[in-house]
């Protein structure tokens, strides 16, 4: 038996052979493209570029609903977020960014695209310009958050000598990074198409819009940096000398005017719809021939790239999913919108003698306001997707007592009646009840009116607008004002304000810093500008000064750019229940501070530029720390 086994084993050894066939073993990997393959055709190279586009970094975007609605412009109606209204500010590391991996990939792309032989000259030029646009955009993002950063424009290679110290680069000056962005913009703007229909790839319009914003930021840091001398570093890594301000303002105005005058294509304000509020909301969801939008992050249904902004923020009542209502714009923000005659006024809730103002319709209190208010905020009594929102806090009886409920649409028996009926809105507001309009408001901007956008399984393909014509007009208006050209500034402001339905044109004498800052606040709200605007004007520590707001203070100084905004307030509508009296079924409004709002935000001097991590500084001791941390 044993013999048989041995002989079989021996025989099988004999029939085993090895092969020496190179073609058989040396196979190309099927899950990865080699460099040669990538650069063999424009389509392959474009997909690499597509990945680089996908890694574009924004702070406030529809992909991050908290970052887009921070700084007490809204209350966050989600139980897990209440802590943000109970603490006193932000970590030094907040808003930090330091992705040199992305910069390396961009540099590698530029290097390899330059060497590519299979691309024709026009394609190559465009790809190169696009990659340089993305690189400049990311350096812009870095300089906004961290101040001057090392400017790495070539892919660094390690020589494996055991000593990588030669790869350490110090931080560039803040102004040098801005200069780099502007120089790149000048170089690439004419290599990109002037096409208003191209929104998600770099165009000449996108470059000009970025350059005007960057020049404006640099200019205002130079001018207003003198107000906060402690926010500087002696090496210029943070802070720009005030002597450079005028030069940057001139550039900002120049780039903006190039774009406004049509040098990059026929961009204009979006003005397609007669209802001005609807028109304003449409800027963000109308993807067909939108003349205002310049550069976006685009999304597409059923492609894997969608976002759930509408899911998490849709009005809760009758929503397509059992959630929504997270961003509740604050009363502070709602009151910032002017009356149609350019005056600032708080929403009238009480008469001078302290008695409440009675309104016959729930939305009457918002009458005669800037159309952008209803275009940005879902007010009580308005509609979304054809369904009226149900925002009201309860009944007030003739003796002043309140009947309300603790659940959405709760029912109780009113005095003199026998049957229970609804005593609070299905959208709240109920103090501490998440996903309802706790401030009395929902957000409208960036909510997608398409059917299904509120479903988790479908989501939304609404784009996120990074640059639009309205902002460019504001950049021009601000730069013109700072250069003393108030007439020109008023002209740009008025074209924007006419679209918002404001009836009286501003004159040169009306233009001042507070006006400009206010216009940006209401026009560009919830688009990711708030932090950077507060920072570059060096007023963040005044707006977020850590002191709580009293109800009287809430209504004062509405026109001041430095008005304290440390806590979000609410406005709750109550219905009067007093049968057989004149006020029966009328509405009154009460200013409320939610019980979840206990902290007051404080923006520290160390928050102006985000903390650079200790691991980064350990690896590269040439990096100097940001001030006041």
């Amino acid at each position, binding site marked *: 038996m044993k013999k048989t086994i041995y002989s079989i084993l021996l025989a099988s050894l004999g029939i085993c052979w090895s092969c020496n066939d190179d073609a058989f073993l040396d196979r190309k990997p099927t899950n990865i493209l080699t460099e040669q393959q990538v650069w063999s055709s424009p389509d392959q190279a474009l997909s690499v570029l597509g990945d680089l586009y996908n890694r574009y970094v924004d702070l406030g975007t529809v992909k991050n609903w908290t970052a887009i609605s921070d700084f007490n412009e809204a209350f966050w109606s989600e139980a897990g977020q209440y802590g943000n209204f109970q603490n*006193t500010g932000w970590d030094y590391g907040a808003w930090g960014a330091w992705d040199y991996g992305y910069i390396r990939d961009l540099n590698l792309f530029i290097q390899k695209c330059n060497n590519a032989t299979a691309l024709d000259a026009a394609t190559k030029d465009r790809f190169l310009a696009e990659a340089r646009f993305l690189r400049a955009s990311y350096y812009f993002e870095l300089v906004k958050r961290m101040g001057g950063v090392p400017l790495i424009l070539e892919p660094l290679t390690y020589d494996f000598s055991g000593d990588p110290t030669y790869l350490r680069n110090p931080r560039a000056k803040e102004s040098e990074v801005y200069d780099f962005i502007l120089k790149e913009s000048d170089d690439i703007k004419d290599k990109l198409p002037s096409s208003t229909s191209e929104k998600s790839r770099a165009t000449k319009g996108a470059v000009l819009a970025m350059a005007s914003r960057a020049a404006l930021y640099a200019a205002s840091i130079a001018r207003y940096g003198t107000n906060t001398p*402690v926010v500087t570093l002696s090496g210029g890594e943070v802070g720009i000398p005030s002597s450079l301000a005028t030069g940057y303002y001139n550039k900002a105005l120049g780039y903006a005017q190039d774009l406004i005058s049509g040098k990059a294509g026929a961009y204009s304000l979006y003005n397609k719809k007669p209802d001005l509020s609807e028109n304003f909301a449409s800027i963000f969801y109308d993807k067909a021939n939108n003349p205002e939008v310049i550069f976006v992050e685009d999304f597409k249904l059923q492609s894997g790239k969608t976002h759930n902004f509408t899911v998490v923020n849709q009005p809760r009542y009758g929503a397509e999913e059992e959630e929504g209502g997270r961003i509740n714009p604050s009363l502070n923000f709602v009151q910032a919108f002017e009356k149609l005659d350019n005056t600032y006024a708080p929403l009238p809730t009480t008469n001078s003698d302290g008695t409440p103002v009675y309104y016959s319709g729930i939305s009457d209190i918002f009458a005669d306001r800037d159309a952008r208010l209803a275009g940005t905020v879902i007010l009580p009594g308005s509609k979304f997707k054809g369904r009226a929102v149900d925002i009201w806090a309860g009944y007030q009886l003739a003796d002043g007592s309140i009947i309300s409920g603790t659940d959405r649409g709760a029912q109780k028996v009113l005095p003199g009646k026998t049957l229970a009926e609804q005593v609070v809105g299905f959208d709240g507001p109920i103090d501490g009840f998440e996903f309802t309009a706790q401030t009395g408001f929902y957000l409208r901007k960036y909510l997608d009116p398409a059917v299904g956008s509120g479903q988790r399984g479908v989501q939304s393909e609404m784009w996120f607008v990074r640059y639009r014509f309205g902002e460019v007009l504001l950049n021009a208006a601000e730069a013109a004002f700072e250069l003393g050209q108030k007439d020109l500034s008023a002209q740009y402001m008025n074209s924007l304000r006419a679209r918002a339905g404001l009836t009286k044109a501003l004159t040169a004498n009306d233009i001042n810093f507070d006006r400009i800052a206010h216009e940006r606040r209401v026009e560009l709200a919830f688009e990711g500008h708030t932090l950077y605007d507060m920072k570059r004007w060096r007023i963040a520590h005044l707006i977020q000064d850590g*002191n709580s707001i009293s109800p009287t203070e809430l209504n004062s100084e509405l026109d001041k750019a430095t008005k304290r905004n440390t806590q979000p307030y609410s406005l709750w509508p109550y219905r009067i229940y007093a049968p057989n009296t004149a006020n029966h079924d009328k509405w009154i409004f009460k200013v409320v501070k939610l019980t979840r709002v206990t902290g*007051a935000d404080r923006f520290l001097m*160390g928050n102006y530029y985000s903390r650079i991590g200790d691991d980064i500084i*350990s690896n590269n001791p040439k990096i100097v720390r940001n001030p*006041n*941390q």
Partner: protein
Amino acid sequence: MKILKYFVVLAGLLLVACSKDNYVAPSITLKGRIVYGGEPLNLEYSQVGMQLWEPGWGKLAPIDVTVSQEGTFSSLLFAGKYKLIIPKGQGPFMTKAQQGSSSDTLYVDLKDNQNIDIEVTPYYLIKNAKFANEAGVVSTTFDLSKVITDANAKSIERVSLYINKTQFVAGSTNIAATNLSGANVTNLTGIKMSVNVPTINPDQNYVYARVGLKIAGVEDMIFSPIQKIQYK
């Protein structure tokens, strides 16, 4: 039955833990105060921070040390040689150069529990603060003393009287406050301020009060000692 016994024995074996591979917890306390003229400074809770650095090994990262309202701090550490620094821009004071050195870095050779007082120079001090309570109004009288009067001197932005339900009394934690802007402070002695006590829910018959001074161009405020005020 036997099987059950084995199980008990086996389970017993599993319960035995060994202490050999566990790290020792830090056990040495470094305590101290931020003082001027031997008196600790009154600051805002958790707003003034210091950093402890232990160079020599690993990647560098500071251990944060925050200073309490009463100007004290404490940290539980391992033995070692530390550098204690107060980062620029922290605190309503100027740091002093340490003995035998041109910088304000304090070298701490930590072998045993240690108590250190860090001497600094505040821009201002609030002195002789007296509080009184009458009919729902907390009033105070106090003096200010300007400590730094040379080229580094800074002006007063405002003086604030804060009251709170708990003993954490400052700009971010108060139930009522009154402010007096620096322009209206003409005489540094005998300054009077008062604040109305709002309705407190749930009711309590005491509040904590203190006066704070905001120095122009300096982030952190300096305070008077906290006083508990009984009423009713």
